[in-house]
C-alpha cells in the first residue's frame, strides 16, 4: 500500500469527487492527483463506495401509508379554521332552538326523550369532525397533554378540579395500552377530558364529555385517515381516535369499556 499523502490537497479529494470545487481549485487538485498515487487510490476508493451505495444501499423512500397520512393531515389543516369558525354558530343555533324546544316540551311535559335524541343526531357529524381535528392538533408538539402521568390515580383527581364530571380512567397498561397523560379540552362547546394512551409508537386520544350517547355497541367512523369510535356510559360520551389499525383500536375500546369504574378519589 502506498503511504498516505501528506499534502493539503488530500483533504480536498472528497470535495473534488463531490464536484464541490471551483474551476481553479479543481485544476489544482487534479494536477496533484495526477502526480500522487496515494490520492489516486483514495479517489478510486471513494468511487467504489459510491458505486456500491448507489446500487445497493436501501433508499428507504417514504411508505405509502405515511404519504397518505401526511396528505390527509395537510388537507385537514385547511378545514380546521373553517370548522372552528362555523361550529360555535352551529352550536349557538342548536342551543337557541334547544332552549325554545325545551321550554315548550317541558311545558307540555312530553317528548323530552325525543328532543334529546334529535339534538344528538344532528351535531354528530360536527362532533366527529371536531374530534378528529382535536386529535390532529393534539399531535402537534407540546399539545398532547397538560399533565404527564402513567398513573390513573393521579389523573383522576387532576380532572376533578377542572371538570364538572369524572371520566373513566382505566389502567390498561397490562394489556399494552399505557396511559401517557391527560389534558382538558373544549370540544363542540363542551369542556372535555382528554386521555392519552399509547400503543407502541401510536397514540390514542380518548375525549369525553357529559352528554347522551346510544348505550348499545360502540359506533365506528373513518375520517381523514383516522379511526374513531364513539360510545356512551353513565351520561358521558367517549370518543377514541387513533391511527391504530382497527383490530387494535377495537380491542382498546373493548378493554376500556370492560374496566370497572374507578372509585371516586375523595369525591362525592
Amino acid at each position, binding site marked *: *500500500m502506498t503511504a498516505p499523502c501528506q499534502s493539503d490537497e488530500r*483533504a480536498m*479529494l*472528497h*470535495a*473534488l*469527487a*463531490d*464536484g*464541490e470545487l471551483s474551476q481553479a481549485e479543481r485544476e489544482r487538485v487534479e494536477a496533484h492527483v495526477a502526480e500522487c498515487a496515494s490520492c*489516486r487510490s483514495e*479517489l*478510486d*476508493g*471513494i*468511487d*467504489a*463506495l*459510491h*458505486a*456500491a*451505495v*448507489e446500487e*445497493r*444501499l*436501501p*433508499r*428507504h*423512500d*417514504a*411508505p405509502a*401509508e*405515511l*404519504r397518505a*397520512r*401526511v*396528505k390527509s*393531515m*395537510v*388537507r385537514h*389543516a*385547511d378545514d380546521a379554521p373553517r370548522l372552528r369558525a362555523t361550529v360555535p354558530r352551529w352550536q349557538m343555533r342548536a342551543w337557541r332552538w334547544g332552549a325554545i324546544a325545551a321550554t315548550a316540551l317541558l311545558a307540555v311535559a312530553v317528548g323530552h326523550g325525543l328532543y334529546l335524541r334529535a339534538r344528538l343526531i344532528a351535531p354528530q357529524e360536527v362532533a366527529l369532525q371536531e374530534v378528529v381535528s382535536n386529535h*390532529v392538533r393534539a*399531535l*402537534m*408538539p407540546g399539545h398532547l397533554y397538560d399533565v404527564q402521568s402513567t398513573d390513573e390515580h393521579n389523573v383522576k383527581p387532576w380532572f376533578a378540579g377542572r371538570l364538572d364530571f369524572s371520566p373513566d380512567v382505566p389502567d390498561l397498561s397490562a394489556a399494552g395500552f399505557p396511559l401517557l397523560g391527560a389534558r382538558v379540552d373544549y370540544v363542540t362547546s363542551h369542556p372535555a377530558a382528554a386521555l392519552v394512551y399509547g400503543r*407502541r*409508537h401510536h397514540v390514542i386520544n380518548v375525549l369525553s364529555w357529559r352528554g347522551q350517547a346510544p348505550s348499545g355497541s360502540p359506533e365506528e367512523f373513518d375520517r381523514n385517515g383516522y379511526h374513531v369510535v364513539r360510545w356512551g356510559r353513565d351520561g358521558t360520551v367517549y370518543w377514541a381516535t387513533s391511527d391504530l389499525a382497527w383490530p387494535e383500536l377495537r380491542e382498546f375500546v373493548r378493554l376500556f369499556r370492560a374496566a370497572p369504574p374507578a372509585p371516586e378519589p375523595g369525591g362525592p
Partner: protein
Amino acid sequence: MRVPFAARRRAQTDAGERSADDASPRTRAPASASDFESRALPHLDAAYRLARYLLGDDADAADAVQEAYLRALRAFDQLRADDARAWLLTIVRHTCYTALAARRSRDTEESFDEDVHSSTDAGDSPDDELIRRATRESLERAVAALPAEYREAFVLREVDGMSYKEIATITRVPIGTVMSRLARARTRLRSALTREGEEHVR
C-alpha cells in the same frame, strides 16, 4: 477515473436546479395548505430517508416525519422564497434529534464528539473490490454504525445528492465540517466494508 466525477458533478447540478425550481417564490398569497402540499410533499422521500437513517426504525421515522410536517405546516408562513427542501429537512432533523435525545437519556448512549470519533478513523487498509461487492445488508449495517453526524451527511450527499451548502444548512455546521464529516464517514465505511468482506471470504 475522471468520468464518474464528471457524471457526479452533472448529477449535482441537476439536483441544484431541482431545488432552485421548487424554491421559486409562489406569487399566490397567503400561504395555504395547498401551497404547503405542493412544496413540502415532494420532499417526503428525502425527509423519511433522513429520519429512517437517523432513527434506524420504520415506525419511529414515520412518527418523526409526521410530527415534523405538522411543525412545518404551522411554521409555513416563515418560509419565504428559500429552499423548501433544506427548510423542511432541518425541521425533520431537529425532530429526530429530539427523539434521539429522549432515547439517549434512557439508554445512556455515547454522545457525539468530533475529536473522539475522528481519532478512531484509521482502520484496515480498504479493499475496493470487496467494497464494490458489498451486500445490501452489510452496506446498511455499516451506515447504521456511523455516528449520526456522519451518517446524515453521508446519506444526504450520496443518496439525495445534496450540495455541501445544503447539507451545511440542514445540519447547521460550516461547509468545511460537512466535507470533513463526509471524508470520515467514507473512510469508516470503507474500513468496515473491507472488514466484513474479508470475514465473508474466509
